[in-house]
Each structure stands twice: as structure tokens, then as C-alpha cells.
């Protein structure tokens, strides 16, 4: 097992293409949390409803950046919408992305209009920005608030299938390639959606708890408990589907299994078997399970949930890595494997990936300066709910 086609010696899709589905996953997951509140009236999630919507927005802004970094001819990026080839799944990206961005921006506008108006009353840069966002219309009464609420709910509902489409389509990009046995499965679409939801909830818990700690806020425990249960449930579904995919190929003992087994055993044993499943799936499963089934002291529970959420963020990143890079390690000759490890400082290297992943958090900080993402905390002077 040592022969690869000579053009496969270098991996084509590198760490940027690992990062792209990771970021879109965070978008989709965070948006779905916000919709659980706005559409399905899960009021216990109110504390993070705005925060999740804003998180979805900032990650969405940066989702195309890894793609641009990867393109050989980035100046032609808009050709994907100007001269789309509709037989290609990838051609849908521009339209799905733009449509979803419009929905998210509009939902933010309607959800936060009240806050924008409040901020626009003053003077200074923030007030000017808010007046610009409101297009000068600062009128508000009961009827406009009701209309805003109605529109926000409609857009949140519309956004759910669009979020699934945005991320499911990324899974479809891989799952529809019959040339690659590691990717070619209809389950890929569903796996990507559920892992997206996992990463979205995880990033909200991770970030919310850090923000609360840094500001000295007390956490909204009912909200954390609810997020914990959702995270546990969705991770069980996501990991089960991921395992199901491999088990079905293994059980069928198809021709491809021989090479995929070698891939798992030799090339992906550490990142896939040990890290993705044994460490970063199993430990969060127990941590979240204990929290979901037993009433622990808040302090211990929060530490466990934050640890689990952080580990699941890594788990989903590992899953993306193992799919994107793992699939390219297998030669289409089915007779060998290639190797890949990203450099630190190259155009598509680790440093650039860290920068791209960090930028949305900075934008979110700026967003919070314009309108508070945790208005209840501000109103109550440091607690969003029952507290510890």
C-alpha cells in the first residue's frame, strides 16, 4: 500500500477548507439556538438569544474568508454568482450564503430595533451608527414593536431551513463526490448538520461563560442547564451518525473498506479514533450526561459543562479535519496514502487559520459596544437569571 497517483502527492484542500465548514457550522448551530427562543418559545434560552443571533452573524461574515484564502484566483470569486454552473453543488454557495446573510441581517434588525432606537437617541459614533442602521426612522410604539416581533419570528423560522441548507450543502459537497470513498456517503449531509448544531451550541456555552467570568456576571443557570441538555442530545445524534457511517461501510465489507480500514488504522488512528472519538466525544458525553441527569452544584456543573463544550468544539474541528484532510490522504489508486500537515506561516497555514477564527470574536466585541448582547444582564446589574 504505497502507491499514489503522482498528482496526489500534494493535498489540494488544506487547513482553510477545514476551517470553512467549521465556521459555517458555528453559524448554523448558533442560529438554531436563537431560533429555539424566537420560534419555539424556549424562554429559558432568552439570556443567550441575542448573543446567539449576533454570533451567527459575525461567523457568517467571516465564513467566506477561508475560501478566498484558498482560491487560486480569488479575484474571480464572484464568478461563482455571475457565471454559475448549476450542475455543480458548489455553484449554490454564493446564492445560499447571500440569501442566508440577508435573512440573518434582517432578523437582527427586527430583533434589536428597540435597542438600536435607544442607542440612537444619544450622540457620538454609536448613536450615528445606530441611526444609520435604522435609516433615520426612530419611531417606535406598541404597534411597531408587535410588527418587529412578528417579522423577527418569521425570519427566525425561515432561517432554520436556510441554516440547515447552508451547512447541509457543505456536507453535500463532500458526500456527492463519488471519486472519494471516504466522502461519498449520503449521510454526510446529515452528519454535517448535526455536528454544526453541536459546535454552535458549544461555542455559545464556551463564549458565554468566558464573558460572564470576565465581567463578573452570574450565569443564568436555567439557560445553561437547557443548553447543556440540547448539547448532550445533539452530540449523541451527531456522534452516532458519524459512527453509523463508518460502521455501515465496515459491515458491508465493500471493496473500499480495505483501503479505508488502512486509512483509519494507520493514518487517522490518532486524530480520528483516539482524539475525535475516545477523548473528545466520550469525555464530553459523560460530562454532559452527568449534568443532564443529576443536579450538581452550579459551580461544579458549570466547570464540567464549559469543559465539555470546549472539548466538543475541538471534536467538531477534528471531525472536519478527518473528513477534509483524511479523505485526501487516500489515493484514488486505492493503493496508498499521502501525507499532509499544514505549515504555520504559509498562506493557508495554521497562523492564518487562527487569525481568521479569532476575528469574529473581535467583531462580536464591537457589536456588543453598539447594542448590548446581554440586555437583561445590564438591566439587572450583573445577573441574567437565578444565578448561583
Amino acid at each position: 500500500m504505497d502507491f499514489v497517483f503522482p498528482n496526489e502527492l500534494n493535498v489540494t484542500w488544506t487547513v482553510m477548507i477545514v476551517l470553512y465548514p467549521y465556521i459555517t457550522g458555528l453559524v448554523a448551530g448558533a442560529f438554531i439556538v436563537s431560533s429555539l427562543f424566537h420560534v419555539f418559545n424556549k424562554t429559558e434560552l432568552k439570556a443567550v438569544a441575542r448573543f446567539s443571533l449576533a454570533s451567527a452573524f459575525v461567523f457568517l461574515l467571516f465564513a467566506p474568508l477561508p475560501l478566498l484564502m484558498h482560491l487560486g484566483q480569488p479575484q474571480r470569486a464572484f464568478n461563482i454568482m455571475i457565471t454559475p454552473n448549476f450542475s455543480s453543488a458548489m455553484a449554490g454557495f454564493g446564492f445560499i450564503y447571500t440569501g442566508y446573510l440577508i435573512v440573518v441581517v434582517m432578523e437582527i434588525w427586527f430583533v434589536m430595533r428597540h435597542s438600536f432606537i435607544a442607542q440612537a437617541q444619544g450622540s457620538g459614533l454609536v448613536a450615528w451608527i445606530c441611526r444609520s442602521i435604522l435609516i433615520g426612522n426612530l419611531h417606535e410604539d406598541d404597534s411597531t414593536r408587535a410588527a418587529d416581533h412578528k417579522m423577527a419570528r418569521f425570519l427566525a423560522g425561515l432561517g432554520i431551513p436556510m441554516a440547515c441548507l447552508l451547512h447541509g450543502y457543505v456536507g453535500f459537497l463532500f458526500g456527492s463526490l463519488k471519486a472519494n470513498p471516504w466522502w461519498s456517503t449520503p449521510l454526510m449531509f446529515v452528519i454535517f448538520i448535526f455536528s454544526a448544531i453541536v459546535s454552535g451550541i458549544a461555542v455559545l456555552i464556551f463564549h458565554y461563560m468566558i464573558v460572564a467570568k470576565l465581567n463578573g456576571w452570574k450565569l443564568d443557570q436555567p439557560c445553561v442547564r437547557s443548553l447543556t441538555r440540547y448539547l448532550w442530545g445533539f452530540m449523541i445524534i451527531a456522534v452516532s451518525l458519524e459512527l453509523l457511517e463508518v460502521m455501515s461501510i465496515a459491515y458491508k465489507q465493500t471493496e473500499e473498506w480495505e483501503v479505508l480500514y488502512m486509512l483509519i488504522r494507520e493514518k487517522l488512528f490518532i486524530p480520528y479514533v483516539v482524539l475525535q472519538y475516545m477523548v473528545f466525544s466520550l469525555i464530553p458525553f459523560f460530562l454532559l450526561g452527568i449534568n443532564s441527569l443529576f443536579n450538581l452544584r452550579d459551580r461544579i456543573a458549570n466547570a464540567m459543562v464549559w469543559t465539555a463544550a470546549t472539548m466538543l468544539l475541538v471534536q467538531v474541528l477534528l471531525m472536519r479535519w478527518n473528513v477534509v484532510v483524511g479523505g485526501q490522504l487516500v489515493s484514488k489508486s486505492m493503493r496508498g496514502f499521502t501525507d499532509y500537515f499544514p505549515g504555520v506561516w504559509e498562506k493557508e497555514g495554521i497562523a492564518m487559520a487562527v487569525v481568521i477564527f479569532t476575528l469574529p470574536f473581535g467583531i462580536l466585541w464591537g457589536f456588543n459596544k453598539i447594542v448590548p448582547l446581554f440586555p437583561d444582564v445590564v438591566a439587572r446589574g450583573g445577573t441574567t437569571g437565578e444565578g448561583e
Partner: protein
Amino acid sequence: MPHDRNRSRREVLKMLAAGSGLLVFPIGTLTASEPEASAEGAHKPYWAYAVDTTRCIGCCACMRACRDENDVPEGVFRTWVERYRIGMDGEVKVDVATGNDHVFEPVGGEVAKAFFVPKLCNHCEKSVCNQVCPVGAAYQTDDGVVLVDSKQCIGCGYCVQACPYGSRFINPETHMADKCTFCYHRLDKGLAPACVHTCPREARLFGDLNDPKSKLSVLLRQRSYRLLKPELGTHPKCYYLGLDREVI
């Protein structure tokens, strides 16, 4: 187009007259396969390729010719030759002469059989690379050649992933998708692809499937052949004569 081909036939005849027999013979293979109707403009060719694996000697002259003809950068390949060595115990060893000189390293040991298999883009009728290109930069010409439009390609690499044969690559100099073009610039002049032209053993054959009298059409009627990965439904137009079952 037919007019151009007619003129090129004269060029070929001139070359024949010049007595450069070694070079002309393979071109004659191409031109001999062209039907008479093409000169009158009524015939539309549909180009295809055949590899006679029983004739390839692994000299890799085709690889060098391709690199010179198409300025292919080092480290990437529009065509390559695979060497198969199947041991007495059935173990299959495959390698490619990827060095700059494209010469196979000598190897020893007892083998049950050994053979060479030239590979290139299969110019599939239902090419996946065309299907997945998000901007339509990958396309198929009327005469059956799959090409990349260098004014459209965005260099996303999706076609590279989709090609089941490892024939596509991102050119490290242009940062765009690249692959074998059947030397389309030569076809326009009535010349055979550089690899066909260079092959000293006629292991690489090229011709018009629309012409039942072309050498390629006759060969495909008379000899048994295999396609690579036919189960994928890509309908490759590179036909392998005498191909061993071990080749994927």
C-alpha cells in the same frame, strides 16, 4: 476547422517528403485515421485515445514530450507511466518515474509479470469535473475534448477532488486547474498529441471515433479493451488494450 485540417494534411505530406520518417510515422497514424469527409467539411470528429499496454516499454518519452510541449511544471503531471511488478506471491508493486528525467529506477527481484501503463485524462463523456466546476470553466468541446478555460477558472480545486483518475491538478504557476488537453493546440493543426507523436512503440494511439474507418475505431472493434473505473459511470474515452486486472 475541416479546412485547417486539410491544410495540415499537406503539411504532413511535406514532412513525409522531407524524409523525417521517425517523426512522421505516428502523425501518419493520426492522419490515416481521419476520414475523407473531414476534408470536405461534412465530418465532425470525436476524438478518443487508446493505450496498448502490451506495447509500452516504459521509456517515458511521452512524459518528457508532454512536459516540453505544454510547459508542465515539475511535480505535477498531465500524463505519467505506471510500472507494475507482480511478485510470485501475488504482491503488486506500483511506481512512477516522477523524477525530472522521468526514468524508472532499475529494480531487481523475481516477478511473475511486469508491465507499464500510461495514464492521462480520460476525457470522459460524462466528466465529473465538468459537472462540479462551479463557474463552468471546465467544459467539453464538440469534438469530445475536456478542457479548462483559463480565463474562467477560479482555482477552487473541486474538479481535482472530483476526478476519479487523479488526472487533474492545480498548476503551481498559474494557480488554476490543469490537465491533459489531448494537445488541443496540435489537433487544430492536424497533429497528433505530443505523447502519441513521440511514442516509439505506438503504445499510445489517438483517433476519431466518428470515423468507422479510423485506425482507432477499427482497433476498438477488433481488440478487447477495458476502461478505468467504469462503475463510476463517467464513460471514459481512453481505451486500454490488454489491460491487466490489477490496474485501477
